């Protein structure tokens, strides 16, 4: 069980998650400091390591829309958070899988900040409200990359197989 540390609306853009002015910073060790930089309070709490690993960011529809900047995923991965959203934009979803940021698709999700959620293999259970919501499973095409631990090990295995 983990807590929802922020519940966001629809169309949360990569400019919101990782503002463009920090794009010259690319190293996964350095990007976390700028997570949601323009949401000053939340950014401060993240940087203070107030939230344990596995804490949940709830998104609405089209989470991560906009830019292809991978920093929007590495910045969140730096805090070991889980993104549970009604839907996720294509590039952000693919980047998350490629980098090993845990994302869960849950189209009917109802959850507020502070709620406690259990994420099972195929549902999200809101322990605070007692409601259970179905997950949409990742397509098999993406599962292979997830099972390999991300796209770098996946590609490395392809290279090795080729010799």
């Amino acid at each position, binding site marked *: 069980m983990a807590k929802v540390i922020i519940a966001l609306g629809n169309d949360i853009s990569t400019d919101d998650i990782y*503002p463009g002015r920090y794009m*010259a910073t*690319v190293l996964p060790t350095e990007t976390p400091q700028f997570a949601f930089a323009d949401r000053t309070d939340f950014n401060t709490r993240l940087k203070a390591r107030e939230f344990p690993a596995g804490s949940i960011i709830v998104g609405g529809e089209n989470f991560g829309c906009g830019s292809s900047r*991978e920093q929007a995923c590495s910045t969140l991965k730096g805090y070991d958070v889980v993104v549970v959203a009604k839907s996720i934009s294509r590039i952000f979803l693919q980047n998350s899988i490629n980098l090993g940021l845990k994302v869960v698709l849950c189209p009917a999700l109802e959850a507020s900040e502070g709620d406690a959620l259990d994420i099972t293999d195929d549902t999200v259970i809101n322990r605070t409200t007692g409601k259970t919501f179905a997950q949409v499973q990742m397509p098999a095409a993406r599962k292979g990359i997830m099972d390999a631990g991300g796209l*770098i090990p996946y590609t*490395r295995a*392809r*290279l090795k197989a080729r010799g």
Partner: protein
Amino acid sequence: MGMTVAEKILARAAGLPAVAAGDVVEPRVDLAMSHENAALVINQFLEVFEGTGLAPTIWDPSRIAIIFDHRVPAESPKTATNQKKIREFVAANGITKFHDIRGDTGGICHQILPEYGYVRPGYVVVGTDSHTTTHGALGAFSFGIGATEMASVWSLGYAVNIEVPETIKVVVSGTMPPYVGAKDLILHIIGTLTAQGANYKVLEFHGETIRRMSTSGRIAICNMSVEAGATSGIVPGDEETVRYLREVAGVTDDIPLTTPDADARYVRTVEVDVSKLEPQIACPHMVDNVKPISAVAGTKVQQIVIGSCTNGRLDDLEIAAGILRGKKVAAGTRMLVFPASGRIFAQALAKGYVQDFMAAGAVVMNSGCGPCLGVHEGALGDHETALSTTNRNFKGRMGNPKSEVFLCSPAVAAASAITGVITDPRNN
């Protein structure tokens, strides 16, 4: 079962006789583009090879394009150092399609690729930039990816585990009214579909209006297809595509075209008649918050921006210069113009557009992304408003979360520069 353009291109690139939406394929990549984020791609690329005993080797350096545009000239030592690292990598790996910070061959990646004939109809193009959808304007299947996915492409030469997307057919009819153009059309389409209406899908553009439209207009439309969530926007290649590639890009070899089958399957068809379309404005803070100009005319603006991969081409500058010629930018409003490439800058000089802009009081800047992504060259002050021909208006996009960005066509931007408020160019 017939195939859409995207299906035909992916089938060919995957070496399959046919594919259908939902199939998972591994298409060979014809062109792989990056800008300054190549610095991150290089890191990931080197990491792929770690522990393999293999030397890091790019599958085909001639198919990689790297263009500096996002932060040019560098705004910080960090960017300058990233650019230096990329230059060294480019030289060491024999990457020839490299466009450095230069006044002759430099420019915005999405302008350079068409201008230099790097993209052809039927190509699979990937780019570490979401606006890579642009190159569907030349009949390619072109989509944005992240830096790690690009590192995988550099290593393997193909994209792994690509799902063939469904296609939405957009049929556009009618003649554009004066001062209404491709930008207004795509803003209208995004407003209709919403920011997620084409998520995981392709927009394939058809109709008499598209057939008559220049490649420049098609670029604007495909460029912003991603703002409806589309994986790619595609105008099937035609005579205009061939004309552009021959006359502008200087292509001399064969240009085979890929067109959809008559019985191709579309998930949805959207019909648009432009004959009564008003200039369209995307209002803060979402690109799909689109209104006809009459709804927001009179809104005061402190900064006007003309340029970007969406609207920094010669015809964009021509219409704006025509409106500004002999007039002045309003006091209290500043205007920035960014030609999309060095070549366009030179053409705008030769035609006198740059002189028109400067005489009016606009500042003409070097080619590049400028303030579009909020890094430098035109950040907004607290509670300021910009009116811009760029493609995004998310909160904070132009460098300040306490500011607002409205998006419009070059004609609206120029007419509004004169008055200092959002102004319908048809009332000039």
